């Protein structure tokens, strides 16, 4: 029987109906501007600060360390540019070559402005080499930006160790935690990290809202000028309804969800590897995001397979060149050493708390069928 299965939660998630319910009043009766001094404004101000506290608490930060933004990309830009523009003496950034484009392209832009950027290599599972990181740090290094959980292959970097290296060398450390937020433990009392990027729509919150954590005492330069909102670091009237939704989404996250996704993910990966031959798992087996399975089906083109799945109501995303505008396979898959053919044969399946075992079984059934079909007409294996 045909079902609809959404397995692209790494791209975005469905907003939790409860989140939407909480947000609705802030469009109509509670529409105030948090900067206004009157009752309506103060009502908004109060809920803004409450939301800030909820988000801060979830990572054991102080409320004052959270700055609301429009999402992950803005947070990454603000973190990186904010830090390097503020520090005139240092001009060197270290990042990895499997970062999200929000980080990579920001760094590339800064390179044009004269900054020096070191792109760390990763091994075949997507881990950076801590020795190489430490060796790359110079007295000119202003910032290290390494994501926690990779959006494509799900690799979870050891940010505790990276944090220690940065602290030892007195370098600021930013981590893009858009994918790993609420899915991977993150305790700021234990981990030394100075800046973190978050996004609401990856955790069943609304789109267009996110946050940046900036550790107390660290100065960053705003990207643009305006009023005194968000300590003038991010001017512009606060997106109250969005922020409320974000906070609600955070408060709805339970550790049980992580366990649920992990169990289904392992079931999915094991079943695919068992039922279909010539499949590779991209990224590590253990230290990977609880909702990510990135699989390479040899001899099959990912976009074609994705389209077959789509027809059958299954949404996934592919690392194939055909699905990108530049006609180049994914930079992450190439960085972990996959050839063009293998990268083009890769699909990403990302689960959510709403995914069920029936969903997975349906996807499995379709995969077996369509991989077989495409392999039959593939000249690489006839």
């Amino acid at each position, binding site marked *: 029987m045909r079902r609809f299965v959404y397995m692209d939660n790494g791209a975005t998630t469905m907003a939790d109906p409860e989140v939407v319910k909480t947000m609705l009043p802030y469009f109509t009766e509670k529409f105030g501007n948090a900067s206004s001094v009157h009752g309506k404004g103060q009502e908004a101000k109060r809920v803004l600060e409450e939301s800030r506290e909820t988000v801060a608490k979830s990572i054991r930060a102080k409320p004052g360390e959270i700055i609301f933004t429009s999402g992950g990309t803005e947070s990454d830009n603000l973190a990186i540019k904010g830090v390097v523009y503020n520090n005139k003496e240092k001009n060197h950034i270290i990042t990895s070559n499997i970062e999200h484009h929000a980080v990579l392209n920001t760094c590339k832009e800064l390179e044009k402005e004269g900054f020096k950027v070191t792109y760390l290599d990763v091994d075949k599972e997507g881990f950076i080499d801590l020795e190489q990181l430490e060796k790359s740090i110079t007295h000119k290094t202003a910032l290290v930006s390494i994501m926690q959980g990779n959006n494509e292959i799900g690799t979870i970097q050891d940010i505790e160790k990276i944090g220690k290296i940065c602290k030892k060398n007195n370098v600021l450390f930013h981590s893009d935690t858009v994918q790993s937020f609420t899915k991977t433990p993150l305790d700021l009392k234990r981990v030394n990290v100075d800046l973190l990027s978050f996004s609401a729509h990856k955790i069943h919150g609304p789109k267009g809202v996110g946050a940046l954590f900036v550790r107390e005492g660290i100065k960053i330069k705003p990207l643009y000028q305006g009023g005194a909102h968000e300590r003038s670091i991010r001017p512009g009237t606060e997106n109250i309804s969005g922020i409320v939704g974000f906070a609600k989404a955070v408060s709805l996250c339970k550790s049980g969800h992580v366990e649920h996704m992990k169990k289904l993910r392992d079931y999915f990966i094991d079943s695919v590897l068992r039922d279909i031959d010539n499949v590779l798992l991209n990224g590590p087996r253990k230290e990977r995001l609880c909702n990510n399975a990135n699989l390479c089906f040899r001899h099959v083109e990912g976009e*074609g397979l994705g389209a077959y799945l789509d027809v059958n109501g299954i949404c996934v995303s592919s690392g194939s060149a055909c699905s990108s505008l530049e006609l180049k396979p994914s930079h992450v898959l190439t960085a972990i050493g996959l*050839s063009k053919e293998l990268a083009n044969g890769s699909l990403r399946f990302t689960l959510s708390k709403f995914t069920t075992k029936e969903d997975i079984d349906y996807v499995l059934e379709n995969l077996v069928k369509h991989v077989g079909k495409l392999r039959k007409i*593939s000249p690489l294996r006839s």
Partner: protein
Amino acid sequence: MYNKKVMKRFLKPKYAGKIKDPDAVGEVGNPNCLLPTEKIHTNPNIMKISGLEVNEKVLDYKGEYRRIINRFSRNYDGKIIKLKNKLGVISLTSEHLVYAVKLPKHDKYFRTKNKKKLIPSWYHAEDLKKRDVILYPIIQKDEDLNFIDLDVPKKKYDFKSYNLPEKIPVNGDFLRLSGYFLAEGSIRERKCNNIITFSFNINEKEFVNDVVNISKKLFGIIPTVKHIEKRKTSIVTINSARLARFFKRLFNKGAGNKSIPQFMLFLPISKQKELIKGLWRGDGYVSLNRSNPRAGYSTISYYLTQQIKILLLRQKVIPSIYEENEKVVKGVKHQKSYRIHVGQRDSLLRLCSILGMEYIPKSFASVDSWFDESYLYTPITGIEKIDYSGKVHNLEVENTHSFVSEAFTLHNCGDLMRIYLKVDKKGVIKKIRFNTFGCGMAIAASDAMCELVEGKTIDEALKIKSKDILDLMGGRDVPVLKVHCSVLGESALKEAIKNYKNKKK
């Protein structure tokens, strides 16, 4: 993303598949081929690719033997890439796929430990650089044999020869003797007096005694030993015409043609050690008291060299193979010969343990090549680009679509699209099928093209434009991004028709 017309074709392509005995095949995306003289490992031979036939078995990338299901050759005019490594050389077209590990541009990957973390994959020859590591399979077949029949009948008027056992045990003794014979032995054929001789240096008493003892034990024949002081040689002779014929059949005659019998290549690794021991005692040397300790083996048989390579790889010993051209040294003419060097520390340690010699390495040699269970990993040591004009060849191998040359592991296709044609006498395309490794659009476009082509003559088919194909799929509805996917089929068709015309000439 796709319109209905594209979707319909993509979901149910009518023309996807292949034709068993096509009149012509056209491939695009990857015109991969080898020069005709490239040598391919078959079972059990190593042969020029141009001489291989369908149904012969070749070694595949997993170290197993697979059947050739098709062979191709075509004319080529352009650049050829010549890759070198320790094991040898290969010349191929630039997009041929080679099984390798590509090293990222970072000094971190100077360290072997880090290289080992990278995933092997198939890379286009042109994308490979010096230092990238290629994979070479170790033969996986393992077949023990306890006895072989001495199936050479006694000649009718042969009254004097010894009574030989009917079965000869395939044990360490026999394998060592085989090694001695391959290296130092010969068969002298005289009327009514065929004999096997082994010539050793006069100082190699141990080996002489070994041969004598083995002969006693296995055949019940006591050989004669002659020491010739003047030539500093000791000659061991086994006087048995029947045995001589048996040896001739087993190992071939003449130093240039001698080869290891096929079954010996698949014996368990522990047994093969004795064969290597015999070979090395004959034609090999080990020189440990020098700054670069090494062992070497020299023979004039190319075939034997390749077989010894297989034996050594199974022992996880890395050989470096060199060709020595014909030369004249001190007035003596030396034939073209092949040298096998073993210099890498761990390899030398293993070889010495096989030969029963003690070797205590003094230094930590750098390790640029290594083994895992199934492969030798060794770096590319040189790349050259040469101009070439002439025939090039390729094979299609069942299941694993790969084959192995003297030094590299190659994929047999990597093309994105293949078109099969069936053409009747009047030049009408009666049947057309396609295979593609492509996205939805490529599949749909190929299908549309096939629909246009089937039933047309080859000349009409050549007039079909990519615009016609696009029109069949909704024309302007096709996303601009996807238009390029639809031209593949057209080029494959042109290629197929070209091949058809060449074939008819």
